[in-house]
């Protein structure tokens, strides 16, 4: 897909189609409603005419209508512009999280400089203790 896009002329590639977050939410709601509505209308019309093709054509029309409404970045979808400074703060916080993960998650040798002194492992004493407990 990226390869196909790179084949478009430069002037077309530069066109920005972003929407701000509120616009994206609205766009999603709009196409969901439009397509489900056309699905229901198509089903009813198809059932009445007893032709499945009518149902599918009406749904297809709903799809094209949704494309027309929500694919282009109409100004309506850009009315709540993203606050870039707040975004930068979020990115810096995220970077700090990743850096911390890198530093403290892996067991670097620095964190193993005071090894825990486990008791020496010998067979006889442990077994004797268990046997004494059982005899009691």
């Amino acid at each position, binding site marked *: 897909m990226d390869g196909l896009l790179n084949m478009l002329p430069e002037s077309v590639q530069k066109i920005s*189609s972003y929407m701000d977050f509120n616009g*994206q939410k609205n766009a*999603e709601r709009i*196409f969901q409603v439009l397509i*489900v509505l056309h*699905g229901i209308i198509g089903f009813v019309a*198809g059932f009445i005419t*007893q032709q*499945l093709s009518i149902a599918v054509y009406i*749904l297809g029309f709903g799809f094209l209508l949704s494309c027309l409404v929500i694919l282009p970045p109409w100004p309506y979808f850009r009315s709540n512009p993203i606050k870039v400074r707040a975004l930068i703060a979020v990115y810096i916080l995220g970077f700090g999280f990743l850096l911390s993960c890198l530093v403290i998650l892996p067991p670097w040798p620095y964190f193993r400089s005071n090894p825990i002194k486990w008791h020496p492992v010998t067979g006889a004493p442990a077994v004797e203790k268990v046997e004494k407990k059982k005899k009691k």
Partner: protein
Amino acid sequence: MHSIWTRANAVFAFTLSVLAAMTFAAFLTTAFNDNIAPVVIKSSNAQVKNVPNYSANRAKNDLASLNFDIQVDVSPVFNWNVKQLFLYLVAEYSTPLNPLNQVVLWDKIILRGDSPVVDVSSANPKYYFWDDGNGLLGNDNVTLVLRWNVIPNAGYLPLVQASGSHTVRFPSNYITGKF
């Protein structure tokens, strides 16, 4: 949803999901139909020969011939979820060698939109009416029934038998020579 491509992807995928749901709903509207229609079957001129069946075991088997009439109107079976019907005429009978024999004598495909009236008169079978053995001689309980397979647009394929059948009686003497 931040670029035109992601929005296009979202709209298209959602449309396909709604299409799947709509197709399933369409299937539900016809899933409980009985798909039966009445048929009138007649026959005449039933004859039997006893000749070697070279495509089977080369023993002498019964080969039957008859003329049949079929009159049926399948238009009540068609609905928005039917693509076509596959009709076939079956001769069912039992012999001492095999308790159940089913031989297809004739079939037809009717697409939705074709004429749904079938009026076949004095037709010969499309396919050879061989018996496995010699059970057709003097057999007076050979039943001709018409069945069809409903090919839907969505869902499973019901197999139903039309209401109405016809019994053929075969003579007790073989004929020789050509039918």
